[in-house]
C-alpha cells in the first residue's frame, strides 16, 4: 500500500537535541576542560564531536523508515545495531498523537502506538511527523477517528449498533446517590480551613449569638439546608462528569462519550474486555442502584487510565444489571448469587487489624492521657471492617467466576475462565489449622490485575481449583 517513508527532517534536529541532553554532563565537562587548554587541537576536537553528533542524528533519521501494508507496519531502525520490526495491525491496541513544546514550534506531532506486550516492550513511537502524515498513519492502521466514527455510524444505520443514553432522571438519580457528596463535604472543610483565618472574628461569634436564642427546630432546618446545598453540589458535579453519556455499541467496537466541560471520548473493542465489575457505593446500594465498568486488555485511548477500567454504564437498577449485560456482553452476564465467607474466616480476617489497632491504641493509652479515647475508635473501625469483610463473597457458575469485595463501595467482579491467566490457591500454617484457603486469579487488563478472595473454606477453594482445571 505504501512505500518506505521517513520521519520529518526536523527529526534530525530533535535527535541531536536528545543526544545532547543525554550527554549534557560529559559535554559540559569537555567544554570546561577545553577552556583550560584552549588551543587549535581542542577546537578541532570540539568540531569533530559536533559533526559526529549531527552525523549520527542524520544517519539515525536516514535509517529509520516505516511502511504500512494491508496487514502490518514495518519499522526499520538503528545505525550500529540494526532493528527490523514487523507489527501486525491487529496487535495494535491504541494510537495516540501527541506533541511537545519543541515539536509545537514547528507544528509537528509524534505518534505513539502500543501492543499488548508489557509496557516497555510494547511501546513504539514515530517521533516527528507532520499532523497530516500522522492522521494518515492513524487511518492506515485502522484506528482513524473518522473511519471509526463512520464504521459505527454505518452500523447504526443498518441497525447493527445500539446506543445507550441516560435520561435526565437517570442523571439526577446518579447525582443524588453518588459518592460526590462526601467529596463535596470534604472539599468544604478544606476550603474552610484555608479561609478561616481571614474571616473577621465577629462573624464567627455571630452564629453563637443567634443560636443562643433559637430553638432546636431551627437547628435541624439549618443542618438540612446545609445537606441540601452539598447535595446540589454533588448533583452538579455528577452532571458535569457523566452528562451527555452515550454508549454506541456495535459488534466490533464500542464508543463511549461523556462529560460536559471536560469531555472524554473512548473507543474499546468488546472482544478485548477481560472482566466486568459492578460497583455499588453505599447510597447506591441502599436504593438498589449500581454502575458497571469494563476492564480491557491493552491501553484504552486514555493515558491516565492505567488499569484499563472503563465506565460503561454510570447508573442502572441493580436488578436490571444482569439483563443489561446479557444484552451487551452476554459473556459476563450472570445471576449474582454468592457464597459468603465462613464465620471463622471473617474472624481470622479481622484478627490482623484487631491486633494491630490494639497495639497502637494500647501505646496511645499508655503514653497520652487522651489515649483511652482511642479504644472506641478502634471498636468502630473493627465493626466497619467486619461489615466490609462479611460482604465479600465468591461463586463460580459454568464458565464464569465472581468475586465480591468491599473497601467503601461494594465491588462485584465478573470474569470468565478463558480470560484468567493463572490461578493460585494458597494456605498459610494458621489457615491450615483453621481449614481456610485464599484464592487468587490474575488477568491481563492494562497491566497485571490480581483479584483475590481470602479465607474461604478449603473445600470451597478446592471446588474453585477444580472448576478452573476442568476443561
Amino acid at each position, binding site marked *: 500500500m505504501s512505500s518506505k517513508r521517513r520521519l520529518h527532517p526536523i527529526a534530525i534536529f530533535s535527535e541531536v537535541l536528545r543526544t545532547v541532553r543525554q550527554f549534557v554532563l560529559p559535554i559540559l565537562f569537555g567544554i570546561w576542560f577545553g577552556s583550560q587548554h584552549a588551543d587549535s587541537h581542542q577546537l578541532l576536537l570540539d568540531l569533530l564531536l559536533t559533526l559526529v553528533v549531527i552525523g549520527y542524528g542524520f544517519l539515525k533519521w536516514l535509517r529509520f523508515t516505516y511502511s504500512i501494508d494491508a496487514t502490518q507496519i514495518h519499522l526499520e531502525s538503528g545505525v550500529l545495531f540494526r532493528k527490523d520490526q514487523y507489527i501486525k495491525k491487529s496487535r495494535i491496541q491504541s494510537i495516540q498523537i501527541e506533541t511537545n513544546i519543541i515539536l509545537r514550534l514547528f507544528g509537528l506531532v509524534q505518534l505513539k502506538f502500543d501492543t499488548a506486550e508489557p509496557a516497555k516492550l510494547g511501546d513504539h513511537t514515530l517521533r516527528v511527523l507532520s499532523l497530516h502524515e500522522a492522521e494518515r498513519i492513524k487511518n492506515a492502521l485502522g484506528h482513524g477517528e473518522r473511519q471509526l466514527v463512520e464504521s459505527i455510524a454505518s452500523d447504526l444505520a443498518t441497525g447493527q449498533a445500539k446506543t445507550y443514553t441516560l435520561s435526565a432522571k437517570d442523571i439526577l438519580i446518579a447525582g443524588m446517590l453518588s459518592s460526590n457528596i462526601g467529596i463535596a463535604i470534604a472539599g468544604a472543610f478544606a476550603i474552610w480551613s484555608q479561609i478561616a483565618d481571614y474571616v473577621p472574628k465577629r462573624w464567627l461569634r455571630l452564629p453563637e449569638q443567634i443560636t443562643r436564642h433559637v430553638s432546636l427546630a431551627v437547628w435541624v432546618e439549618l443542618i438540612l439546608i446545609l445537606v441540601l446545598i452539598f447535595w446540589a453540589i454533588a448533583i452538579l458535579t455528577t452532571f458535569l462528569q457523566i452528562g451527555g453519556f452515550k454508549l454506541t455499541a456495535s459488534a466490533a467496537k464500542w464508543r463511549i462519550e461523556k462529560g460536559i466541560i471536560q469531555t472524554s471520548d473512548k473507543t474499546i473493542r468488546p472482544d478485548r474486555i477481560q472482566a466486568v465489575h459492578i460497583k455499588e457505593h453505599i447510597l447506591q446500594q441502599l436504593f438498589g442502584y449500581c454502575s458497571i465498568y469494563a476492564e480491557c486488555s491493552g491501553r484504552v485511548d486514555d493515558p491516565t487510565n492505567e488499569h484499563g477500567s472503563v465506565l460503561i454504564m454510570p447508573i442502572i437498577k441493580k436488578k436490571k444489571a444482569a439483563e443489561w449485560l446479557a444484552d451487551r456482553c452476554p459473556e459476563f452476564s450472570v445471576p449474582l448469587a454468592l457464597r459468603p465467607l465462613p464465620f471463622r474466616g471473617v474472624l481470622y480476617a479481622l484478627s490482623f487489624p484487631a491486633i494491630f489497632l490494639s497495639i497502637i491504641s494500647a501505646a496511645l493509652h499508655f503514653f497520652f492521657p487522651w489515649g483511652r479515647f482511642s479504644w472506641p475508635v478502634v471498636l468502630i473501625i473493627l465493626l466497619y471492617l467486619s461489615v466490609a469483610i462479611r460482604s465479600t463473597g465468591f461463586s463460580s457458575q459454568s464458565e464464569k467466576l465472581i468475586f465480591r469485595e468491599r473497601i467503601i463501595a461494594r465491588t462485584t467482579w465478573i470474569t470468565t475462565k478463558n480470560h484468567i491467566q*493463572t490461578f*493460585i490457591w494458597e*494456605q498459610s500454617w494458621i489457615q491450615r489449622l483453621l481449614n481456610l484457603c485464599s484464592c487468587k486469579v*490474575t488477568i491481563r487488563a492494562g497491566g497485571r490485575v490480581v483479584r483475590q478472595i481470602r479465607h474461604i473454606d478449603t473445600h470451597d477453594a478446592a471446588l474453585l481449583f477444580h472448576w478452573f482445571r476442568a476443561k
Partner: protein
Amino acid sequence: MQKKQLNSTVVTIWFQRATITHLILALLIALAFLCADQFSWYAWLRWLLIGLALLCLPSYLLSCWIIPKIRYHTFFYTIRSEDILIQEGVFVVRQIVIPFSRVQNVSTGQGPLLRRHQLLSVAITTAAGSHEIPALDEHEAETLRDQISVLIKEGANREL
C-alpha cells in the same frame, strides 16, 4: 500425574546464595559502623547498627539451615495435558495453575551459582506475569522447556 521435585542440589545453592548476601550485608554494616565510629555520627545510629547486626545472625541461621529445606520439600511441579501446576512456598504454601493456552513464552536462565552445578531455572511467562521453577538439571530443564513450547503451539493461543 507425576510430581517432580527440584534438583536436590538446590538446597546447597540457596545456602550459598544466603551466605553471600549475608556476608555482603555484614560487610556493609561493619563499614557503616566503622564510619559512624570514626566520624562520630549520631550515637543512636551505632545502636541501630548493632541491633541490625544482631538481627543478621538469626536471619542467617533461618535462611541457610531451615528455609531452604522447607522450600525444597514443599516445591513440586506436575504437567497435565492442559496445564502445569507448581507448588511452592515456605510459610504460605501456594499452588499455581498455568494453562498452556495462556503461556506466551518459556525461557531458561542460569546464574553463576547454577552454572557451577550444571542447573537451569525455567521461567514461564503469561500475559500477566511470570513464574519460575528455580533449579532443574540441564537436561530436565531443556526437556521441560521444549515440552511446554510444543504444548503451547498445540493449544490455540487466544489473541488478547
